[in-house]
């Protein structure tokens, strides 16, 4: 096991922390307490400032066979940043420079420790737009890539993976790799870069990211559509997509959940009518285009008994709606034992929600469920009572099984981390997991990087 002095020689004495009370916040992430893995007892926190320093740390760890757990913003909710074995927590927070917003190539180059919110602002200040919005703006860009974050805006543009063009990463044997670049086409061999996206810190430490950007849309509007009936809301979604309109986002929420989030933020949910809501974000090259889309969406929604359709156009009003939606998990967190992120084919989302309801009734509980209605990604919240009654895992597995039966997966956003691994037996595909383990061994022969995370 590496000692602190060896690390101090690499990064300087100020950047190695051994006192437990000075590193408490580095030992956990946002995973619900009921299922959060317990951090190991003997952990050293190290904060390198460059890929070169990280390379030296990894070489040392590889030599000494010391586990290294990579930490970005710590906003994950599957235990992926928790040091579950004695070893090192390697925080990339000092790699916090936005190196370049390249308007000519429509790219941004950011070091791994840049906060997502800071990158968004730099991009916006340059008059450009980064479409994915996974929620927590204090997440770090390295983490966004390591987790292939999704979020609400995936309908039109896809998830983080669709925007990564280049990556710099340090692999456990100490080599610094530059994969991809400011390129839109790259067929130079196997695409290792995409292996790092959603690798959850198991293949290497991401140190720099090149994201593709988009021109800023000229006009946008967020519709808040109220329904009395959940099914009418859900049935609207495929019709909107079939009509040829691809909104930036289509979110589904219910009043009982969204009002808790609004209250916690000291805000108010704008819709006074209805119980079930679609949040539809429209963008276009002109206000007229947004209104033309809004007109068609409204016609479809009214056909499905929408009881009210509001529009937010002011920037802060649109941001408020996104904020209330993005903070739902934070507002429920104290009472939540686990938040799932099952994903089914988009057209099956209504069926999946009914299955969740049936399971909730059978176990005499409530399972608040909301999610990304157009991409099949749902967040059933399993409440603490299930944990206290000792049936949390049973309920979770039943939901997983229903999702798998519909052709879905047990995680579409948050990743496997630590907390999803015990239920991988529900996804039996021996060869797939075997190949993944083989790839891990190629990069990390001694299994020092995030051992026990993301892969069995």
């Amino acid at each position: 096991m590496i000692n602190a002095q060896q690390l101090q020689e690499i990064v300087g004495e100020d950047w190695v922390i051994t006192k437990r009370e000075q590193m408490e916040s580095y030992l956990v992430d946002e995973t619900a307490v009921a299922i959060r893995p317990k951090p190991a007892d003997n952990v050293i926190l190290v904060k390198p400032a460059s890929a070169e320093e990280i390379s030296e740390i990894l070489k040392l760890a590889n030599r000494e066979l010391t586990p290294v757990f990579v930490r970005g913003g710590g906003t994950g909710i599957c235990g992926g940043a928790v040091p579950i074995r004695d070893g090192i927590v390697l925080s990339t927070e000092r790699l916090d420079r936005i190196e370049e917003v390249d308007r000519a190539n429509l790219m941004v180059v950011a070091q791994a420790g840049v906060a997502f919110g800071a990158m968004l602002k730099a991009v916006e200040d340059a008059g450009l737009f980064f479409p994915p919005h996974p929620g927590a703006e204090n997440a770090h860009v390295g983490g966004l890539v390591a987790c292939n974050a999704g979020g609400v805006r995936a309908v039109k543009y896809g998830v983080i993976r669709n925007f990564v063009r280049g990556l710099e990463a340090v692999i456990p044997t100490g080599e610094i790799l530059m994969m991809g670049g400011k390129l839109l086409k790259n067929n130079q061999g196997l695409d290792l870069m995409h292996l790092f996206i959603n690798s959850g810190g198991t293949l290497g430490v991401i140190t720099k990211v090149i994201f593709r950007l988009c021109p800023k849309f000229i006009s946008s509007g967020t519709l808040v559509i109220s329904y009395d009936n959940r099914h009418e809301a859900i049935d609207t979604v495929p019709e909107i997509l079939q009509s040829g309109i691809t909104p930036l986002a289509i979110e589904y929420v219910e009043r009982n959940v969204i009002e808790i989030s609004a209250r916690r933020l000291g805000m108010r949910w704008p819709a006074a009518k209805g119980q079930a809501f679609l949040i539809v974000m429209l963008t276009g090259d002109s206000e007229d285009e947004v209104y033309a889309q809004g007109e068609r969406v409204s016609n479809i929604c009214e056909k499905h008994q929408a009881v009210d359709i509001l529009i937010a156009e002011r920037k802060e009003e649109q941001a408020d709606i996104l904020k209330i939606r993005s903070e739902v998990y934070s507002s429920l967190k104290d009472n939540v034992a686990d938040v799932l992120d099952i994903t089914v084919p988009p057209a099956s989302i209504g069926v999946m929600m009914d299955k969740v309801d049936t399971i909730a009734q059978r176990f005499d509980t409530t399972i608040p469920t909301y999610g990304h209605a157009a991409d099949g990604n749902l967040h059933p919240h399993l409440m603490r009572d299930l944990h206290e009654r000792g049936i949390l895992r049973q309920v979770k597995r039943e939901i997983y099984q229903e999702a798998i039966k519909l052709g879905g997966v047990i995680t579409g956003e948050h990743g496997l981390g630590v907390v999803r691994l015990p239920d991988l037996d529900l996804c039996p595909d021996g060869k797939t997991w075997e190949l993944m383990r083989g790839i891990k061994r190629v990069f990390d022969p001694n299994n020092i990087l995030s051992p026990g995370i993301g892969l069995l």
Partner: protein
Amino acid sequence: MPELLKVSITEDINRRSGASLRIIVPMKQVPDMRQVKFDTEKGKVDRSSAAAEINPFDLHALETAVQLKEKLGAAVTAISMGPRRAEVALRDALARGADSAVLLEDSKFAGADTLATSYTLACAIRKLGGFDLIICGEKTVDGDTGQVGPELAEHLNIPHLAYVSKLVEAGEKLVAVCDMEGEAHIVEASLPVLLMVTKDINIPRLPTFRDKAMARKAEVTIWNAEELSSFADPSRFGIEGSPTRVRKVFLPSEEGRKGKIFRNTNEEAISDVAQAILDFLG
């Protein structure tokens, strides 16, 4: 709807106003202040650098008016002075519940300070005929003076209540809570009266899509200087009527957070820390 308003409708008010209140909401189109840049040479806000929108404080004024309209019955008129593009803001006001909108547009109005602005608005309000209430936002986010409201009341020779955070009663008289320097004053006024409301008074509603789509095509009445002439002294319009001159505009420098590491834990280090705090506090 927040329980902010306890309304007592009196016969008197119904009789006097012909079954409904007449409410005027002055509004301003302002640049989005998170994006706007300043032209320090000319001493002006560079309005072309950011998108324009209704001054956020004015939305609270409009919401107050619309809530009164829903409870008491009222005709709400939004009025603004500015270039033609300010029509967009007034149409937004129509979508959010105003019944009519007037834009004062003329190159003669340009360059107005708060005195000339309030004078011009007062002339237009006289032209509109009678009113019971004028409801303004606390201030605008670009000028930040909070002067136009009280000046408008003076031009019209009516009382005004500033920093209104709550309406307690609206009827024969108006009773409001005014937040003044940390104290809440409960103030009574007779109508007509001008109110300047704070952001605490309500949360502005979102317009419905259909109302907004309709309002985009709605007509906004446009008056120029000539049309106000029988109510005004044109020499008091615009830059000519503005005694204010901006001498200099400068931006405060943005200093980021500065860290300093004190390495020792002995007495001397503690006094170093104490000294650093004292130095910071000046």
